[in-house]
């Protein structure tokens, strides 16, 4: 446990080391750069999983399962209380009392709802029974290094490790490792010189440039370093530093094809839009520091100069002090805002700062500061009661959220993410779907204890808007990567929505499941693009025959993002997280009862349905039906194993990342089916052959890459290519003879898996009886439950809004099963089922013609295809006015300032010329020349002495010695001998 900070420190620094190495030796490394970067991140992943193990062994997760199906079986959640108050030093749980984490039961409290005007944040009381105390959240925080102390401001490199950090580390390093492997294949053509077909130079030729393979991995490594640092960061200032580092990496990677105008513009756009968000974040940071006096998340123990140990409270314990961890307005904010009325000379009153007033009153007295401080302290509760400082708390939360809006591409700063698809596809998968954009959601989750209900409401609204906006635009996008980009925008919106309505666990769980299936989807799309050399889905179709592995893994990704399930029994990972969000939204509606509060639930359901529809639209357009572009189709081929193996691994995780041990049956049966099919069809021998022939990376090189340089590649790799193509044609013939998966096989597999898995699960449940098992804790949900910020398990009510934020366990109480869980699950199922049917009707079966719909709803279609005209809107609102003002200023600059400066410069030149003649030429040069001439003449006169005759020199020496002898004997009394 004590080694955790060291392990995580090493895991963060390894990619940095790789970055520095590649930076310094890029030229010498060449292809090895990929191995270095991959090795570094792989090692980081190993360390992360090691740390995960250490963490689990020290903080055994407690079963907190509230799976709907389990509730259906009447598992008793409200067992014995768990009062094992864990200390922060990592004390072990006493194993005897481990029991399900208690759900704090909440009675809808009319008193709480009619909560009167006391404006201080006063969460509606969680009606936790006193003996049912929730275990303290285990975490570990501390400092690696203090960068500097400026007064009371302390800037440190610190760490904050809790279960969320641990999970994020595993998720980020794992996905990054997969993507590094994939990128080694994908970026292979950067190893040699490249003709970039998308860049036409002035002379009409395409750009010819050296490959930039090492540079790509250099940026990837830097990105991994920044992302891991961001996750590990123990204070908000350090978060901000790594936040910006992540931003700059994103900038580098979007603009990787820097010669393309579109790429460099997109990079600039991403960077500038993010700056707008970061501006808000800086405001939040300043509020926090100036009122709380610390950046640190957790309490930090310090030893001062006199060896006294004292605990310096962190942000979380300042805003949620005390035993019940209720959110209050911190003293600093109250005091900063407290006002007093003071009469002015003209008989009116004006408001002045109460603190300043007290300080002034006490300045004259002898005790001075001490008495002033005590008076301020004694009056603070009253001020808090009056509501002073609340707006600062809301604003601090909104400021931090502003940064998240930029980074996670939320409305209104969502415009950069789709453009960011200009980067290479592995970047899109890593940076713009799985990790970096997740940073915003992560920070909202991390900072969750500080958000006041009003801030949460804003988060929920922004999230809802973003979700619908992204989903609606994704319908009309024809670029396969853009569909995924808008899907990412939409899913991030959904996460924000979940967090905003109090679904901390739901939002972060969706963050993690989404990371897996979205990186899978992106890598699949990369594989497709690689094969057909276009991003345009209108030129694809029928590709399932050509690239079955990609098609099936992508289908799994689509099913996962749709949250397909057998309701209440089992589902893809998306089912669990999306369901949790819908349940929380429905609980929010139920607790508040107003139609407006129900909007979130309805929007979330609509968003889920839309997501399913456009994802399957994409899948059907790409993989089934008749090929629309026969040339691209003829040429398509499955990617090399180094590219599709990560897809397979990620697809397995996309299915089962949210499962726990009870689901082993589903996993085993499905795996057995696939392995059996594979043996029957010889997948594994094919795989072995292709791995042993043409080494992995090269095998990829054979297949022409890059979306764009197909023809060039044809020439250069002609021979080998033909051979390979022959191969793939042969395989293709095989596929036609026996398709890799048949309908009957899939149906059998699904039925057997579900039934067999369900029976296994029932067996396991029956075996262990009704109590919770030790193993129940080893699931994503239970682990996140362990990371839940303290105090967020109580209902909260805002000071300004009268809505109540239900705690997240509310939806899972048995009493709510029929009113929340069942409807939410059924609505979710209906949404995905409807979505798939709709997409199939349009794009597979052709029952409905999309063109007709397009014509009928032309205005809406135009709105969507133009992305709600956001780019145009921003262009008109921000860019054009800026340009007009800039042009005005520039013309003023040219006309007046430049002219003045030009004349000034002319005068300067004239003056210098005169001065040069007088001072420089005459005086300075004259003196130097004179001296030089003198030295020269001295040299010439002396050179006659140097005759080159040795004997003459000896004579000089002898004569000189004699002269010195005489001089000494004449002028220097020989005292030496006398003594």
């Amino acid at each position, binding site marked *: 446990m004590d080694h955790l900070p060291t392990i995580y420190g090493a895991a963060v620094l390894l990619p940095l080391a790789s970055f520095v190495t590649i930076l310094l030796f890029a030229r010498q490394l060449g292809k090895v750069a990929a191995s270095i970067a991959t090795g570094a991140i792989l090692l980081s992943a190993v360390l992360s999983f090691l740390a995960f193990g250490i963490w689990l062994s020290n903080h055994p997760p407690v079963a907190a399962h509230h799976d709907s199906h389990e509730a259906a079986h009447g598992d008793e959640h409200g067992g014995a209380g768990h009062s094992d108050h864990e200390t922060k030093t990592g004390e072990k749980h006493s194993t005897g009392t481990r029991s399900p984490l208690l759900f704090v039961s909440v009675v809808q409290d009319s008193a709480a709802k009619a909560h009167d005007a006391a404006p201080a944040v006063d969460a509606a009381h969680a009606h936790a029974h006193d003996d049912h105390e929730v275990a303290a959240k285990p975490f570990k925080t501390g400092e690696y290094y203090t960068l500097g102390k400026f007064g009371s401001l302390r800037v440190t490199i610190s760490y904050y490790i809790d279960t969320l950090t641990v999970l994020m580390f595993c998720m980020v390093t794992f996905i990054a490792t997969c993507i590094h492997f994939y990128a080694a294949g994908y970026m292979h053509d950067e190893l040699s010189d490249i003709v970039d077909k998308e860049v036409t130079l002035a002379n009409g030729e395409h750009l010819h440039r050296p490959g930039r393979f090492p540079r790509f991995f250099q940026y990837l490594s830097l990105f991994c370093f920044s992302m891991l640092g961001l996750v590990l960061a123990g204070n908000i200032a350090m978060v901000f530093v790594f936040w910006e580092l992540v931003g700059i990496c994103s900038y580098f990677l979007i603009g990787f094809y820097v010669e393309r105008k579109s790429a460099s513009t997109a990079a600039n756009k991403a960077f500038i839009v993010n700056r707008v968000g970061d501006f808000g974040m800086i405001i939040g940071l300043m509020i926090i520091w100036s009122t709380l006096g610390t950046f640190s998340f957790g309490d930090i123990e310090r030893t001062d100069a006199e060896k006294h140990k004292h605990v310096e409270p962190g942000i979380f314990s300042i805003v949620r002090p005390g035993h019940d961890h209720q959110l209050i307005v911190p003293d600093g904010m109250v005091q900063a805002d407290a006002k007093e009325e003071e009469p002015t000379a003209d008989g009116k009153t004006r408001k002045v700062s109460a603190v300043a007033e007290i300080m002034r009153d006490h300045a004259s007295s002898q005790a001075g500061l001490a008495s002033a401080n005590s008076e301020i302290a004694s009056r603070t509760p009253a001020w808090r009661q009056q509501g002073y400082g609340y707006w600062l708390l809301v604003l601090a939360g909104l400021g931090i959220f502003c940064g998240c809006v930029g980074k996670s591409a939320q409305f209104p700063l969502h415009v950069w993410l789709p453009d960011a698809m200009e980067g290479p596809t592995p970047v899109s998968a890593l940076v713009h779907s799985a990790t970096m954009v997740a940073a915003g959601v992560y920070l909202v989750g991390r900072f969750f204890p500080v958000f006041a209900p009003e801030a949460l409401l804003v988060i929920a609204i922004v999230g809802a808007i973003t979700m619908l906006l992204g989903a609606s635009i994704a319908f009309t996008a024809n670029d396969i990567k853009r569909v995924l980009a808008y899907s990412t925008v939409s899913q991030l919106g959904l996460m924000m929505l979940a967090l905003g309505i109090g679904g901390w666990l739901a939002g972060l769980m969706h963050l993690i499941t989404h990371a897996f299936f979205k990186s899978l989807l992106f890598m699949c799309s990369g594989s497709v693009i690689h094969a057909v050399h276009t991003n345009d889905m209108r030129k694809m179709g029928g590709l399932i025959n050509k690239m079955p592995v990609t098609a099936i893994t992508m289908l799994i990704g689509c099913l996962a993002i749709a949250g397909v399930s057998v309701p209440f029994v089992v589902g893809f990972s998306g089912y669990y997280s999306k369901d949790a969000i819908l349940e929380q939204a429905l609980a929010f509606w139920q607790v508040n009862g107003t139609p407006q509060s129900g909007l979130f639930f309805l929007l979330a359901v609509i968003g889920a349905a839309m997501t399913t529809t456009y994802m399957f639209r994409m899948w059907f357009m790409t993989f089934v039906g008749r090929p629309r572009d026969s040339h691209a189709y003829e040429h398509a081929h499955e990617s090399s194993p180094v590219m599709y193996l990560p897809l397979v691994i990620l697809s397995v995780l996309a299915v089962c990342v949210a499962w726990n041990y009870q689901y082993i049956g589903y996993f085993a049966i499905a795996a057995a089916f696939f392995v059996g099919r594979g043996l029957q069809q010889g997948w594994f021998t094919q795989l072995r052959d292709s791995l042993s022939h043409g080494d992995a990376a090269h095998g990829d090189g054979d297949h022409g890459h890059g979306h764009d340089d197909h023809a060039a590649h044809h020439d250069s790799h002609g021979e080998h290519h033909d051979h390979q193509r022959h191969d793939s044609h042969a395989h293709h013939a095989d596929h036609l003879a026996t398709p890799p998966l048949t309908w009957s096989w899939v149906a059998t597999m699904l039925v057997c898996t579900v039934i067999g898995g369900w029976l296994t699960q029932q067996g396991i449940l029956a075996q262990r009886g009704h109590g919770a098992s030790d193993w129940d804790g080893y699931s994503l949900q239970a682990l996140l439950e362990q990371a839940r910020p303290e105090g967020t398990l109580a209902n909260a009510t805002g000071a300004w809004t009268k809505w109540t934020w239900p705690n997240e366990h509310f939806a899972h109480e048995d009493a709510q099963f029929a009113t929340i869980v069942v409807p939410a699950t059924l609505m979710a199922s209906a949404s995905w089922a409807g979505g798939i049917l709709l997409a199939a009707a349009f794009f597979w079966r052709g029952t409905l013609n999309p063109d007709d719909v397009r014509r009928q709803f032309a205005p809406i279609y135009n709105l969507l295809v133009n992305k709600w005209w956001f780019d145009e809107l921003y262009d008109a609102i921000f860019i054009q006015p800026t340009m007009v003002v800039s042009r005005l200023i520039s013309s003023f600059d040219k006309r007046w300032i430049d002219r003045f400066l030009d004349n000034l410069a002319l005068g300067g030149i004239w003056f210098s010329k005169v001065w040069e003649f007088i001072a420089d030429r005459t005086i300075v040069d004259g003196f130097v020349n004179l001296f030089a001439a003198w030295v020269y003449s001295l040299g010439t006169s*002396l*050179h*006659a*002495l*140097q*005759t*080159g*005759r*040795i*004997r003459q020199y*000896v*004579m000089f*020496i*002898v004569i000189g010695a004699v002269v010195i002898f005489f001089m000494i004997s004449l002028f220097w009394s020989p005292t030496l001998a006398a003594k």
Partner: protein
Amino acid sequence: MNPFTEPITVSHYLAVGALLFVAGAICMATKRNALGVLMGIELVLNGANINFVAFGSKFFRSSSLGLDGELMALFVIVLAAAEAAVALAIALNFYNNHTTIDVDHADELKG
């Protein structure tokens, strides 16, 4: 005071050393043969050596300076050996280039 009748003191050694030194210097100044010049150098060095030894000798401790002259002399001998090796190599090279070892022909370095 007749030096030939006096008992032998440091001065006698110094006189011999000075004689050797002067002989060496004259040899260096007059010989045109490079080997001759080298021999002169040896004489000069050995003249100095005699001084060292005389000043360092314990027999003359009362009238000498009491230096560890023998040690100095050893240094000088070693240096002289080294110097002779180098100088002979130079002379050999010089002969290769000029087919003579007349030092008067060696005036390429004149200013």
